[in-house]
């Protein structure tokens, strides 16, 4: 089924772009957004599969992923704020007190 494959390829592309973002960006919030991008790519895969398979489990899964993403966003952003409060920055470069 061509259609499924195009969705899958597209999601793969998006997933990879998200990965690249995580690996290259320095702003924590942007990194977080890239992770969201990855999750969305996964969502697309799920939905595409769900449609292909003819059951709704994948879509339910997407629903939960979204919820989790929301929860992560709340906690993550709060964390960034806390970090910013202490360090006046949300560059992940600056999160380097602990090493070795």
């Amino acid at each position, binding site marked *: 089924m061509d259609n499924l494959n195009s969705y899958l390829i597209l999601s793969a592309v998006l997933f990879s*772009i998200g990965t690249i973002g995580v690996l290259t960006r320095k702003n924590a919030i942007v990194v977080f957004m890239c992770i969201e991008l990855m999750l969305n790519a996964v969502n697309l895969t799920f939905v595409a599969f769900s449609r292909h398979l003819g*059951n709704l489990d994948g879509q*339910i899964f997407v629903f939960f992923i979204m919820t989790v993403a929301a929860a992560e966003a709340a906690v993550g952003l*709060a964390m960034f704020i806390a970090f910013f409060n202490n360090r006046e920055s949300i560059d992940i470069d600056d999160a380097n007190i602990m090493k070795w």
Partner: protein
Amino acid sequence: MDISSVFFALVAIVAVVSALLVVTCKNPINSALALVLTFFCLATFYAMLNAPFMAAIQIIVYAGAIMVLVIFTIMLLNIRVDENKKHSHQLALGSVIGIIVLMMTGLVLTRGKVSQPVGDITNELINSQGHTELIGKVMFTDFLLPFEVTSILLLVAIVGAVILAKRKLS
């Protein structure tokens, strides 16, 4: 090449370009806006996949809630432009790994064997019963427990956000 394919291609291009923008924009706000655009594109795909409920919550939850939160945070923290200093090795290495991931995923998808349709959900059923209802039925029967767990998850997120973000009272 029928019209839906063309439409798919167009939206896909928009999605990819906007995703790339997310990664490349210097200004986090721009990244965020590009991400919102990507979300919209995905919502479009969900609709095309005959999953209107997913498309709706994609926009409501992601574009509406999460991205607003993100943008709010960016504004709150008053972050303007990303770093001036370049980290070429970081960029290079990250890109290389990302591209490898891409190629591999492609390979996986093309080599893999997807299961034959197993469920009884067809376009007709969705059209007749309604997507939301179908989703609801499955969610509150088969996946009741996960659904309930999400409530605690969100509670934790709330409490956590409160603890983490609260300023010290001094």
